[in-house]
């Protein structure tokens, strides 16, 4: 985990000169643009410390009932929500999701959205792909993947005679 973060930090450091004109050169993750005022601490600080900020506050909130916290996950999405092009927002299921832009790049799995919602409050998230799929749909998806990988008709792993 620490190594991955280090790598992410290095990658961002390498890429940052290329982002001076506002575009990413393709070496690093493509970070979706946020709305609202920038963080006063600066982006570099937030990149490195966002988890520490939230981890501190989560214990204060859950155990001590302090709701007046500096960093809350739901607040992140007031600015860092990515629109899905249909008037809504993408959930963590989508590769377009703000958090996934960097975390996929660094191969770090985020567990926050096992429990927390990954879109702004009030938005009605669509049913989860994985949860709503029927077994037949799952088989179809697997078959089309195997067809694509090994060629049509070989999706049974070559076991048919």
């Amino acid at each position, binding site marked *: 985990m620490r190594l991955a973060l280090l790598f992410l930090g290095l990658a961002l450091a390498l890429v940052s000169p290329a982002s001076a004109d506002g575009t990413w050169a393709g070496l690093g993750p493509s970070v979706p643009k946020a709305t609202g005022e920038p963080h006063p601490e600066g982006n570099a600080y937030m990149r490195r410390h966002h988890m520490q900020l939230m981890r501190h506050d*989560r*214990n*204060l909130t*859950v*155990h*001590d*009932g*302090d*709701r*007046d916290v500096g960093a809350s996950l*739901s607040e992140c999405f007031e600015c860092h929500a990515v629109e899905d092009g249909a008037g809504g927002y993408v*959930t963590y*299921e989508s590769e377009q999701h703000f958090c996934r832009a960097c975390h996929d790049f660094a191969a770090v799995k985020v567990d926050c959205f*096992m*429990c*927390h*919602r*990954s879109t702004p*409050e009030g938005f*009605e*998230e669509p*049913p*989860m792909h*994985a*949860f709503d799929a029927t077994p037949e749909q799952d088989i179809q998806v697997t078959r089309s993947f195997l067809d694509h990988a090994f060629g049509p008709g070989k999706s049974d792993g070559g076991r048919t005679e």
Partner: protein
Amino acid sequence: MSQPPKISRRDLLKSGGSAVTLTIASGVTLMAFGGSEVQGAADAGKRWGLLIDVNKCAKDCTACITACQDENGWKGHGNRETDAQWIRKVTLKNKATGHETAMPVMCQHCEKPPCVDVCPTGASFKRKDGIVLVDKHICIGCRYCMMACPFKARSFVHEPTNNQSVNAPRGQGTVESCTLCVHRVDKGQIPACVEACDATGNGAMIFGDLKDPESEISKRLAEFPSVALRGDLELNPGVRYAEL
């Protein structure tokens, strides 16, 4: 035949321990005067509780359950055995007279919660103001607490979740239960079930501070008889039932 009280080594150690706690506590108080006190925090001087007047609870009314679902975002998946139930209507029938009683049962927010005793990670805990919660950040989903709870108040989330309420994050592989709407209580509001019950006009539920003798709930408890569910277990729950 009475025996003189025995002071064991354990009791001696415990009394020593309390002296240390006092010292620490006074230190904490001093710090609190320094302005480091957390705002809106769980207050050890309070103990939140519910009083449910079973006579006023309409048999077919499920307003408290619907309100809880809306507020906390839990819902069923059509599987009665595994669906989450933070609050449920329980019907009791007196076999001798045929009289039926319906009442809501949820986490009873015990003073001595068995779910907290058995939790191997400390995820199941009691807040300073008596609200019993699950810290899902450290819950490993072992479900010991579900087995320990005599009220069947806790549920395990079997399915992946999405579209959760901001008020109550909930996820697959963790245990959950009534939070006494802790997010509302911290803002000075009353739980959603109590609000919904008042809105129906039944007014069967009262929420308040059990430690405050001037609160409505304390006055009612002092004036009229009430019971704790499974009083024989001596868990001293924060949820009390009248007219049962």
